[in-house]
């Protein structure tokens, strides 16, 4: 393992936070895409998404 010296905290937290943000971006992309595909499938199957559209 390489040497990161006495500033290890800063280096690791910088990389850690960056990973966290990158992971968040990917997660958001995947979840959002999945939600939209599901909604589209439901709509194309003919029944509206629950809770939307006029009642009555």
């Amino acid at each position, binding site marked *: 393992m*390489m*040497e*990161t*010296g006495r*500033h*290890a905290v*800063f*280096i690791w*937290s*910088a*990389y850690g*936070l*960056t990973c966290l*943000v*990158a992971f*968040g*971006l*990917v997660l*958001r*992309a995947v979840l*959002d*895409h999945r939600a*939209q*595909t599901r*909604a*589209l499938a439901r*709509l*194309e199957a003919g029944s*509206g*998404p629950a809770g*939307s*559209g*006029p009642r*009555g």
Partner: protein
Amino acid sequence: MLTRLANPGFFMRVSGLALAPLAAAAALLFALGLYLAFFASPADYQQGETVRIMYIHVPAAWLALFFYSIMAVSALGTLVWRHPLADVSQRAAAPIGAAFTLVCLVTGSLWGKPMWGTYWVWDARLTSVLVLFLMYCGVLALWRAVDDPGRAARAVAVLTLVGAVNIPIVKYSVEWWSTLHQGPSVFRMGGPTIDPSMLRPLLVMALAFTLFGTALHLAGMRTEILRRRVRSLTLLQAERLERAAA
């Protein structure tokens, strides 16, 4: 070619094909970049080991600017050509750009503590990046404030273009004003001044970030197109139900 790519159906097909290779390439480059950054590059004689923060700080800064530029160009597309794909591109770029700006700010602060002795100073570079982040926040707030996507896109486009004056300020602030932050050392007249042993990981990481960002942008645009389809279908169905009720 360009007009054909601007057709949403065609765009969906091409982007669907491109997404997986892009993501894979980004992952590979990240692995290579991280290896170079931690094992194959020396500590800086001046900055010590903390120079390794550069390999994420600088690419994040570049992409923060890059995504704002994408938003600005798409904004032109929205206002001038009224192309729906431009709206979609604007919308997908905003959260990604904001995230990279945040990374730039956070890693910069974490670098500043050991280098300058403080997390934050109010110099022109840092300030203008913070303003950039605030602009991204404004853009995101505006997107969320309107439910009609066409109208939202036009409003956001105006805001983006007005805020675009900040981009050159971020870029050139270190040259226009004397700042604590250091000047450009890669993209400058007369070639880079960084030692190749540090330039190599930097460029690899930059490429990895770019591919990663592009993949996210494409994925975001695809989702956005789906969202619009869902919206119009929902409205259509509501209308049909209403007709039936009346």
